């Protein structure tokens, strides 16, 4: 309990500073933000109205307090483009982003961990070099380039998968959970579920590639360190089979820190989601943020940035707690 309380207490100043950074985004706009956001054709009345909406006439500390008070009421502001509350728009799009990132995380774990183990057990051999090169391409390739290549090959040339979009069936029916595959299954519509899954494959692959490659590289290094530890040498000296030493003793210890990598990198994936959702016309909050950037819709940019940060902070906290629960040394160090 002391460990959990300590982690939560450490979060308070960080969250306050996160709010301050998001608040300062609009103030970072050079010149008068209202004039810049409305563009050259704006009238004085429009500028005055926006200054009033953004509370720009108040002293900065008061503006910040008003911003925090509004957040506490669940008010993330109103979109300058559509006039809709930002929170409602984000909540509408959140399931699409969660669906994409969670599936991508699962796919990355299923590929990344075996990749790392195979590389470590054959360290510096030809297979290790080849797989390391593949994982290196995975961490080095820009998400937008991988997306283009996959779209070209699997959608345009082979015609196996849809180029973009989420699903056509969902547009006709009101969402139940907001998760396209679940909704189709709940309606008993197998064809719609298959369609939703087919739409997920390419964006999922793009998002998963970076995490799978990062995880593979991390598990390889972690395994190499663990295989050099005394307890592994002792187990081998006692005559234990190499397979058992590697896959039971070493892997279990090497995977413990991988929990942190999986958690943090899957949250980091949200940055990649902006690019992926934009290219695949995926109706999540990443694409919503991109559209807001094009329209210079700052309440939306602030709202989506804050939501991304809150997801990231929450994931870090959960990862710390899981890591602490699994490893008593971490509890002691972080207490």
């Amino acid at each position, binding site marked *: 309990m002391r460990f959990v309380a300590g982690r939560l207490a450490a979060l308070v100043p960080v969250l306050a500073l996160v709010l301050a950074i998001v608040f300062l985004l609009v103030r970072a706009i050079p010149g008068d933000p209202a004039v810049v956001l409305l563009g050259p054709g704006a009238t004085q009345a429009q500028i005055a109205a926006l200054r009033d909406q953004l509370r720009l006439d108040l002293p900065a500390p008061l503006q910040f307090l008003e911003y925090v008070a509004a957040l506490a009421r669940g008010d993330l502001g109103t979109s300058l483009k559509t006039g809709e509350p930002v929170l409602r728009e984000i909540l509408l799009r959140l399931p699409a982003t969660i669906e994409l990132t969670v599936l991508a995380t699962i796919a990355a774990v299923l590929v990344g961990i075996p990749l790392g183990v195979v590389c470590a057990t054959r*360290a510096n051999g030809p297979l290790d070099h080849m797989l390391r090169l593949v994982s290196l391409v995975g961490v*080095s390739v*820009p998400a937008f380039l991988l997306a283009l290549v996959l779209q070209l090959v699997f959608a345009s040339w082979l015609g196996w998968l849809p180029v973009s979009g989420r699903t056509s069936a969902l547009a006709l029916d009101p969402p139940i959970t907001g998760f396209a595959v679940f909704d189709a299954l709940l309606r008993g519509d197998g064809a719609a579920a298959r369609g939703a899954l087919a739409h997920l494959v390419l964006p999922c692959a793009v998002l998963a590639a970076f995490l799978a490659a990062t995880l593979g590289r991390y598990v390889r290094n972690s395994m*190499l360190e663990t295989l050099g530890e005394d307890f592994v040498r002792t187990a081998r000296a006692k005559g234990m089979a190499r397979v058992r030493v590697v896959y039971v003793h070493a892997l279990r210890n090497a995977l413990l820190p991988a929990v942190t990598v999986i958690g943090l990198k899957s949250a980091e994936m949200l940055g*990649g989601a902006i690019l992926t959702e934009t290219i695949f016309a995926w109706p999540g909050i990443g694409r919503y943020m991109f559209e807001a950037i094009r329209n210079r819709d700052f309440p939306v940019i602030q709202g989506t940035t804050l939501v991304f940060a809150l997801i990231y902070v929450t994931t870090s906290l959960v990862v710390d707690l899981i890591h602490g629960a699994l490893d008593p040394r971490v509890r002691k160090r972080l207490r």
Partner: protein
Amino acid sequence: MAEIAAFLRTNRLAAFGLALLAAILVCVIAGPLVYEVSPTRLNILKRLAPPGPDFWLGTDALGRDVLARVLHGGRVTLVVGCGVVALAFVTGATIGMISGFAGGWIDVVVMRLADAMLSFPSLVLAIALAAAFGPSLENAMLAVAITLMPQFARVARAQAVSVSARPYVEAAVTLGLTRRRILLRYVFANGVGPLFVQATLALGAAILQTASLGFLGLGAQPPAAEWGADVSINLDFVRSAPWVALAPGAGILLAVMAFNLIGDGLAEWLDPRRRPAQ
């Protein structure tokens, strides 16, 4: 030097990374001098021409030579990557060193601020900052440098705390040297080493993030050639003329790969635990 050569002989991937970087540098530095075609010259009659003897990598939708744009765009992308890391290195290292050396409330405030900045997915923060500063290459560089800065500050702070506890720093304090002199001459000089490894590792990320901002329209503005922006402006033609986007995209991939290979090699060289068990 002999030690480096011996390491490169055993770590083929790091050697490959160095060779790849050398090849890229030769192409983008010497390339435009040999291949004297303007990257911004329009030739509407030859738009979307496929790769061939006239245009080695084809032309884009405005008839501009793709090879010329890749060579000139590479210069921009690499200079931007190095500039971003240099900016993040200098500011992050300075802030981190002062924070670790001074301790007390300065250290607490600086580290909480670094924690807060690291609480954003880095690309999200870079995008939000670049959107606030306004779309331009300089603003994109500044945005990415700000997001990378806390990483340098954290490493520098850890180094400063570690070096400050060494006997020679205590001796310098006893001798009555000014804090500024101790910080610059002893703490910074002895703690800066690991920051160079961090810088090498950050170069790939810096290029990738700046290219991503360029792709979103927040980086270099037309008609300037830059790899990320060149992928973005050619998206609509990618199905009929894939070379227009794939060529600059491949440039980003190869450059980031080269820096990642070198960074990995450096990290492995400095950390014996990461070398394979005998």
